[in-house]
Structure formats: C-alpha cells, structure tokens
C-alpha cells in the first residue's frame, strides 16, 4: 500500500477504534506517589489512562516516552489516550513532585 493510502486507511480506521472498547487503567496519586507505580498494559492497542489525584494539590502527569502532558487538579480525575504502544517500558512522572512521583508502564 502506498504511504498516502496507508495514512488514509489509518485515519479512517483509528477514530472508530478510539470510540470502541478502549481498555482503561487507573493510576492513583496519593501523597505525591503513584499507585501502582508499575503497571502492565497490552501493547499494540490504544488504551486509556485514568489518573485519579487524591491529593489536595495539583499534579502534572507527564511522560516523554508516551507523549503525555496533563495537569490533574487536586481531588480530580483526568483521562488520557495512549498508544498503540510498542512492547517496552514507558516511564512517567509527576512534574510538580518529581522527587517522589515516579512510575513505569510496561507494554506487553
């Protein structure tokens, strides 16, 4: 398939896939730490991460590897779409409390 047709096919297919059943995984923030700090998710599939910030203070959930940057205000939940990820390890962190807020996603 030519790159243009490939891109077209993908652009048509992916939005529908995004609205289908997307598995969601919750990561809780408590006292500026992630729980779980390590989490295994399926590779090659679009997933949703729900970040549940139980702290009173805001956090910025960030991952360079997964290309996420999202502020989660205190006592709120935020959702981000991720992937499809290649198998591997994807670190994430809380930019506002980098010393303690560190975690990893494993795509298998």
């Amino acid at each position: 398939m030519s790159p243009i047709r490939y891109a077209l096919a993908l652009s048509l297919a992916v939005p529908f896939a995004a609205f289908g059943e997307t598995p969601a995984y919750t990561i809780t923030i408590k006292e500026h730490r992630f729980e779980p700090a390590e989490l295994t998710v399926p590779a090659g599939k679009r997933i949703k991460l729900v970040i549940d910030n139980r702290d009173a203070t805001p956090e910025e959930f960030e991952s360079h590897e997964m290309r996420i940057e999202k502020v989660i205000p205190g006592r709120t939940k935020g959702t981000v779409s991720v992937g499809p990820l290649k198998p591997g390890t994807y670190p994430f962190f809380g930019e506002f409390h980098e010393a303690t807020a560190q975690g990893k996603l494993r795509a298998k």
Partner: protein
Amino acid sequence: MLGSAVVVFRETLEAALIVAIVMGATRGVAHRGRWVAGGVALGIVGALLVALFAGAISQAVEGRGQELFNAAVLLVAVAMLAWHNVWMSSHARKHVEEMRHLGHDVQVGARPLSAMLAVTALAVLREGAETVLFLYGLVASGGSAGLALGGALGLAGGTAIGVLLYFGLLRIPLRHFFTVTGVIVLLLAAGLAASAAGFLVQAGLLPTLIDQVWNSSGLLSMDSMTGRMLHVLVGYNDRPTGIELLFYVATLATILALMRVFGARATRTARSAAAKQGAPA
C-alpha cells in the same frame, strides 16, 4: 527551593522565548513595547483565571477539556503568527525604508500590533497557568520562603534567556533582519501547530498516523536545555508522531503560500504605483 526554581524556569523559558521573538518581529514599530507589555499583563490575568478554573476546564467535554483548551490556544496563536508573517510579506520593505528614512519608530495600524499582543498573551497564559498551579500546590502543602525565592530565581532565569535571544536577534543587520525573524516566526508557528496536534491525539480526537516517525532522543533529547529551546523556537521534536509532522509541514506550506501570494500582490501594486508616478503628466 531548587525544585521550584527548575519548574518555574522551564515554564517561563517557553513564554520568554516567544515574547523575545514577538519583540524582534515588531522591531521599529512605534508603541510595540506598550502592546507587548499589555499582552504579558493580559496573559498573567488569563493564567490566574485558567488556574482558578482548572478543575472545571479539565472535567469539561468528557475529560478532554484541558487538551481542547490547549490545542485551541495554540491554534489561535498559530493563526496570529501566520497573519503577522503574511502582513510583513507585503509591508517589510516599506517598513525598513521608513525606519531608515525616519530614523525613529514607524507608526503602523492597530491590527498588526493586536495580533502580536494576542500571541504574547496566549504564550504567557499557557505557561503561566501551569506555573500558578504548581506554586499553588506548594503553598497549599506548606510552602516556605525558599519556595518563593526558587520561583523568583526560575522566573529571572527564564526571562534572562528571552532577553539574551532578543539582543542576539538585534545583532542581525537590518537588511536581513525581517527575513530572519520571518523564518523564525514561520517555524515557531509550525511547531505550535504540531504541539496542538499532540494535544488532540492525547484527547483521543486525532490518530497518530505513525506512532514514531523517528527517535533522535539519543542525539538531542527534549529534556536537555538545547532540546527544549529548539522545541520552542523551531518545533524540534525527538519523537514526533505522523500527525505532528503532518501539522508541522502543512502549517509551514500554508503560511509560505499565503506570504507568496500577498507578497507578490504588494510588489505588483508598488510597481504600478511607481509607473504611474514616473509617467509624464
């Protein structure tokens, strides 16, 4: 203290670099300082408001509010930068002539200045809101005097780099000056458009097309100071997705095409005006 300095520095840097480019691009325009300062002030007020309503924005549109808001802010800035460049493509030559001829700043209409006021305000708003939230969090969890000092240091550091960039730009000879700032504004706009695409992907509204077109993080990481600066200035990305690259190239091509069309029209008008003047009565 160091932690707060680093975070505030990162956020300030991005806004400061954009303000420096705006100051460069409006060189020789009368009252631009007032307009840019107005943009910064508006941006700070906007940042406080955005931080105040962060919870509501974040929960809006099925939890996609923040991404949509960021993408919208970025795309409006892209439109304003594009408009500025198109306007300059038909006014730059006359502007430089007038600067030389008058020996002082040139009066231009309110429209080109308000476009750059908007770019400044939006840059400060976006980065400022995150800084406000971060500092609020630290204060809420029992901040210290060190925190305030750290924040001030970060702010001073980011601003200093913006000032350095501005004075660096001023060293470019006037003849080439607006060509250079035009290219910088063009690349800045393309980079911001790519960032907007990134937010729309994060919101699940756009496909990535290609998950990773290349990975140059080993060569120049976006975590590094140089990587971060180039990210703001020319839209450098160490792991771009297909859609980000597409937005980058499409923005670049669109603005260039518009500049060419309007620049050519201005040259034609100037030429025919000159021909009329030259013709014997």
